[in-house]
């Protein structure tokens, strides 16, 4: 039995999501190799070789893979996957984009967003926005799986010494090209990897008031998130959205400010270790999942909290 993990990286370095995917792959009980597909991505490949417990790292270094275009990378993964029983990728937007294409090329089902590995063919995954957990069994000989990164601890980034092999296969489907990107630049940790997250909802009233969260975030080393209501109201951009249709987070501490606690939001944060809710409506559903609830006007509470930290 053997498992291929698809690395998440930006060519220069490996993204933490890869480490969570490796832990999920370990639960399948097979030998693990990692595929790094990119351009000028040797550094990411070397980093992957240091992860504990990896057999070998396959590096496909070609311009066709530079921007992770699904049309090209899926052809590569499907070819490499022929030698493996399982293909595992993190359920990031990149993994979600590419892996179903891989599954279809291999004529197998994909199991999306796995939160627990029960056995080599049986998995748990949330459905209906996390209101129900399904246990599903795959009858495919080859399994294509994406895993929810917050459900698996990170594997040790150091300690391994895998061999690095070049993959020469070049797949350029010629169907798509990269035009540009707008990446939010922030000194704060990434939302899905931050140990502390502070999020604002409709109660923030406008985008300017999100500044009230910044001072607290700076003191706690926190990422700043938002509810869908705050995004829909135009307060903040969509890449800050925490919820069923946004990012799934599970930090040590989640502070929900002016968020009522709609099902769609809870689906994105209810696995946080400690949840704090600050809301002036004492009947807000968010208090039903909060470890510590503070019924207060956020415009009074936030400045107090910032100075108390």
């Amino acid at each position, binding site marked *: 039995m053997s498992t291929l993990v698809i690395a998440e990286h930006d060519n220069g370095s490996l993204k933490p999501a890869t480490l969570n995917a490796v832990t999920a792959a370990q639960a399948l009980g097979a030998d693990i190799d990692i595929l790094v597909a990119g351009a000028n991505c040797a550094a990411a490949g070397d980093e992957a070789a240091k992860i504990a417990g990896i057999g070998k790292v396959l590096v496909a270094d070609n311009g066709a893979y530079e921007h992770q*275009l*699904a*049309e090209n990378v899926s052809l590569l993964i499907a070819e490499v996957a022929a030698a493996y029983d399982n293909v595992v990728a993190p359920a990031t*937007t990149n993994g*979600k*984009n590419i892996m*179903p*294409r891989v*599954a*279809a*090329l291999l*004529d197998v*089902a*994909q199991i*999306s*967003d796995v939160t627990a590995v029960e056995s080599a063919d*049986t998995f748990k995954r*949330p*459905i*209906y*926005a996390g*209101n*129900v*957990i*399904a*246990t*599903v069994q*795959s009858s495919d000989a080859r399994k294509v799986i994406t895993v929810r990164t917050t459900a698996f601890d990170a594997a040790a980034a150091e300690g391994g010494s895998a061999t690095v092999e070049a993959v020469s296969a070049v797949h350029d*489907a*010629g*169907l*798509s090209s*990269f*035009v540009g*990107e*707008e*990446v*939010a630049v922030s000194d704060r940790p990434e939302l899905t990897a931050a140990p*502390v997250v502070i999020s604002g909802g409709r109660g923030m009233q406008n985008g300017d008031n999100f500044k009230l969260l910044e001072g607290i975030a700076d003191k706690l080393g926190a990422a700043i998130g938002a509810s869908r209501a705050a995004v829909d109201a135009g307060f903040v*951009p*969509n*890449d800050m959205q925490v919820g*069923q249709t946004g990012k799934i987070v599970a930090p040590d*501490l989640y502070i929900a400010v002016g968020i009522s606690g709609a099902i769609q939001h809870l689906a994105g944060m209810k696995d946080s270790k*400690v*949840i*704090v809710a600050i809301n002036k409506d004492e009947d807000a559903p968010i*208090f039903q*999942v*909060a*470890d*510590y*609830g*503070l*019924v*207060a006007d956020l415009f009074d*509470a936030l400045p*107090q909290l910032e100075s*108390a*930290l």
Partner: protein
Amino acid sequence: MKVLVAVKRVVDYNVKVRAKGDGSDVDLNNVKMAINPFCEIAVEEAVRLKEAGVATEVIAVSVGEKPCQEQIRTALALGADRGIHVEAEGRIEPLVIAKLLKGVVEKEQPQLVILGKQSIDGDNNQTGQMLGALTNMPQGTFASEIKVEGEKLNVVREVDGGLQTISLSLPAIVTTDLRLNEPRYASLPNIMKAKKKQLDVYSPADLGVEVTSHITLVRVEPPAERQAGIKVEDVAQLVDKLKNEAKVIS
């Protein structure tokens, strides 16, 4: 150009779905059904392309049991020109849906296929990408903006770090994210008109597809419940609890 839009019948997004007592499946007795919200956005985008003179015809397709014709009619009321129902029983997996849609693509030869990025029941987020692989079409998933420019389609995508823009050759596949547009409401006259629009029904066999199953649903269960905690009196007590009880800040 011809635009094909896929729509799915799902539980209304306001319904809180529960597992059945015996854990065999979710309980969908007497719950309100609706068009999947992401599919509604897909229909809206197709209709806007037609209104802008880019699309010449909008075809709404759905795969499922007979009642999904209601959702096709909803799409027709929103402005799609005609409907296709691929009648299939039971739980149809995304790979099979993609194969059935491929059959429809081969019949209709659309230049653009728009789907929702995921349905809010299975939360799989697979069908559009799978259809892309099966038809060898490029894909612009999680789209927040699309623009046809000559023979190319530019797609702005919602990705983890922000936004990415890619250029696709046509024919192409787009899957919608929430911010692509705000769907309109169907007017009563349009709902009445939709009842008269053409709706063709195919079987999987008509499309040369065998309905197979790769996944067995073993059981369903409610997620681990979180216990509500305590209410604190003020900020000072909150900070004290976080430091000394939860020990999550220092």
